């Protein structure tokens, strides 16, 4: 009990150092703290259509953590180091997609897809649970809009609002200047706002048409 309590009170860096010395429980605690945000970050980056690829990348991130346990030194926060690994892997993945033209296809086909988050499908259920469904619609709409963002903007947005990093930490992870990151974040918010407006307008138009 005391060891578990001790591990829970330890910082991420202390846990990683303990794991580097062979403490398996430290890694379990560390994994439990970060598995959700990093998984969502990867999933949002790759999109809902690439769930399997996201899981594969998620595993790859943690395997790199395991492999680098002995060489880990406390130069920055553990989470910064962890997300930098994830960021680099995602960049490699985006490069592969770009080379194959899949990324553009993903972006292009997104507005035309007819999945469950489409305004047309959502608008069909507005009669019974209009307000609840509207909120659900907005949540799925904005997540879809995030997927439609340019990768750099999406990266900055997810690191800032999904993982909870400060602007300076985002700069450190993506290795970009603060002005660049701020610009990306500003454009990301603007894009999301426009995207969400368009979706809401489309749903309203569709509902009116149905009515």
């Amino acid at each position, binding site marked *: 009990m005391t060891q578990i309590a001790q591990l829970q009170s330890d910082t991420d860096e202390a846990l990683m150092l303990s*794991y580097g010395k*062979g*403490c*398996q429980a430290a*890694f*379990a605690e560390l*994994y439990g703290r970060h*598995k*959700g945000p990093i*998984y*969502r970050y990867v*999933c949002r980056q790759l999109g809902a259509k690439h769930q399997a690829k996201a*899981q594969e990348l*998620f*595993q790859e991130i*943690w*395997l790199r953590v*395991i*492999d680098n*346990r002995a060489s880990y030194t406390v130069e920055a926060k553990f989470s910064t180091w962890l997300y930098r690994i994830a960021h680099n892997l995602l960049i490699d993945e985006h490069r592969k997609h770009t080379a194959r033209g899949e990324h553009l296809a993903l972006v292009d086909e997104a507005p035309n897809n007819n999945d469950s988050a489409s305004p047309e499908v959502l608008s069909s259920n507005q009669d019974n649970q209009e307000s609840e469904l509207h*909120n659900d619609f*907005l*949540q799925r709409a*904005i*997540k879809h809009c*995030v997927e439609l963002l340019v990768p750099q903007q999406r990266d900055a947005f997810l690191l800032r*609002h*999904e993982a909870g990093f400060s602007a300076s930490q985002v700069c450190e992870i993506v290795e970009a200047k603060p002005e660049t990151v701020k610009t990306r974040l500003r454009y990301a*918010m603007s894009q*999301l*706002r426009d995207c*969400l*407006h368009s979706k*809401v*307008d489309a749903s*309203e138009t569709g509902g009116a048409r149905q009515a």
Partner: protein
Amino acid sequence: MSKQFSDDDLIKLYQQNNDAMPPKHIDDAILARAADVVNGENKIFDKKVSGNKDLESKARAQKATKTSNRWWQYSGLAAAIVAVAVLAPWQYYQDPILVSVESAEVPAAMPKAKQAPESAPQIERVEILAEDEQMERIEVTGARLERAAPEQKARAVQAVSPVMYGINLSEPNNELSAKPNGMFKEILAKLENKDEAGAQSALIKLLKEKPEYHDDIPEPLEDLYQALVKNGKIERPDTLSKSDDKLKDKN
């Protein structure tokens, strides 16, 4: 008219129900991988530790063997050094003594050798008068050694050897010179006891037996001797009488 979304609205909207988690099998796979790596590392570490212990024990055994081998080597070396230390001084110790004896004793022996021809007649005379055979042998031995000295300058150690045996080469000469006095002692004793007749008869007897003692008459007996010569009881040898005449003429 659609609602205007602020940045906060967008963020809140995004974060609502945003609780997607990795599947359970991925969690298990990652944790198992982490555990395997740590356990494998511990096994490797245990193997290394046991391997190191084996190596240490082997090294100790080798070291012990080397030490025992070295012990014999060291003991042999020490024995050799001791043997050299014990035996070497005999070689180095004799040479300085030979040198010192030559340098110290040769000059001392040389004057004796020079004296040898001079003392030779005395020695021969003493040989004739010798009463004791042992004394005669010692004198002869000393004379021979003295004669040999000039011929054997480099063998001065051998010339010294009689000295080392406690023989004084100068003693025989002293005795030779003292012997006539010894012969006259009895006469002097009688004279001191005022036995002039006994002294005269003893002197006459001695000079008859040893005519060469005419030249060695001691001063206390000189008056008695002259009286006997005047009385005609003693006849001086010719050479001596001639020399006496010369002395008288001078006077």
